């Protein structure tokens, strides 16, 4: 399974570390990432790959939402195809 993980929230120390640690725990491999600051809002996008026999999409989503709630961040996980479908001809 491949998906895009987006992290948005107030900039703070250790965001990248926290998200990356959780992804490592879930055995989600990061294959690409980018991050930027937009008006004090930290925005990070990661492309992650994992074995969906080991971890279902819903479980990955639940774990990341929990991390988001605990860290004051909005963390979304969506399959890549939706972005291509909407934005590319």
């Amino acid at each position, binding site marked *: 399974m491949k*998906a895009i993980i987006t992290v948005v929230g107030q900039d703070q120390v250790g965001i990248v570390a926290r998200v990356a640690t959780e992804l490592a725990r879930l055995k989600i491999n990061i294959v690409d*990432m980018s991050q930027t600051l937009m008006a004090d809002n930290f*925005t990070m996008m990661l492309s992650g790959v994992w074995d969906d026999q080991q971890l279902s999409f819903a479980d990955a989503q639940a774990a990341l939402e929990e991390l988001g709630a605990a860290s004051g961040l909005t963390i*979304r996980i969506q399959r890549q*195809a*939706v*972005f291509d*479908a*909407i934005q590319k001809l």
Partner: protein
Amino acid sequence: MESRPILDTIQMIAEENLDIRTITMGISLFDCIDSDGAKARQKIYDKITHSARDLVKVAEQIQTEYGVPIINKRIAVTPIALVAAASADQDYVAYALTMEKAASELGVDLIGGFSALVQKGYQSGDRKLIASIPQALAETSRVCSSVNVGSTRAGINLDAVGELGHTIKTIAADDPVNCMSLVVFANAVDDNPFMAGAFHGVGEADRVINVGISGPGVVKRALEQVRGQSIDVVSEQIKKTAFKVTRMGQFVGSIAAERLNVPFGIVDLSLAPTPNEGDSVAEILEEIGLERVGAPGTTAALALLNDAVKKGGVMVCEHVGGLSGAFIPVSEDAEMIRAVRAGHLSIEKLEAMTAVCSVGLDMIAVPGNTSAASISGMIADEAAIGMINNKPTAVRVIPATGQDVGDEVEFGGLFGRAPVMRVNPNQPQAFIKRGGHIPAPIHSFKN
């Protein structure tokens, strides 16, 4: 990684209320017809629950995996007046209860098709179905009903127009809120995914997936970026935005159809508002430059919007269908509600607007003492606009029993609240009472 497209998409969904309004499965019931009504209903129940057993599950999976909200899961069936006509049943309420039971078992939001097509005349099943509508709607919560009373090719069945005025009054006498589940059409379409008017047309395949999109908030936000510029720029901006919104409909519909192993029918290119702030068609018209929806110029702005949405969306979809256009349901659009409350929007202006958009006088509350003949007159007017202009039109009015102008009817949720609107007090009684059939119009000498 290209971050801009990802952020744009997330903004459209999270801040601008972009969603898939409905995934609707159309199911043919022709193979359920039986001279024994009880057997027919058992076959109907079995076919619906078997065909759509994974509809809700698949819609929820897509929502989770792609982060696209899918607001409604619905079913549309063959008009029951056709399916039940072979039986000896004298009323068809039991068919509505069967639809309700199947919908409830599946967890779908609404089920449409308690319908009759009488634009040219009544067959025996049509009369029984129309007579059953008030009780059917009173005893169910998910069943939606529609009657087609006119078409460009057939003219208008004035007998049916007259009868439905009384039907709507009867429904309202029990509970005005039930009136939102009945829509009276001219030129009804076979592949409409939106309620209350969805039914599975007689020329459709056995099963089909149709998708209705939304997204007024996205269009409004896009137009904020071109304030003061020429109307050509406005049109281009709407087209570009509609393109993106529709892509999502095509994408979600094709995945749903594949997972359900059902052919993908059409995307309905609609701008469907909700009462939520920032999800209003009226606000788009105001962004185009009207001080308030209802002002002179409203019809022109709406015509441009409606056309540009179609132009932007049509290239994206394999097949376009349904009601495709901007919806103007008063109770479901926060800015429309405000305009009516302030006295800036009248039924007459709304009627003019329906000549250039989808779909008709929709979700409008009228005083409880409005006569059946007046309601029939409104239906006749809308049907005439549809018939002459070769487009679907509809009436979904709510006589607010015991209430008058200044009061409001509360529907709840996405259906919102409707301020009671003034109706012209002069009566069309003698016109409606004539009955008969308004002949089909001539298609030359377009003036």
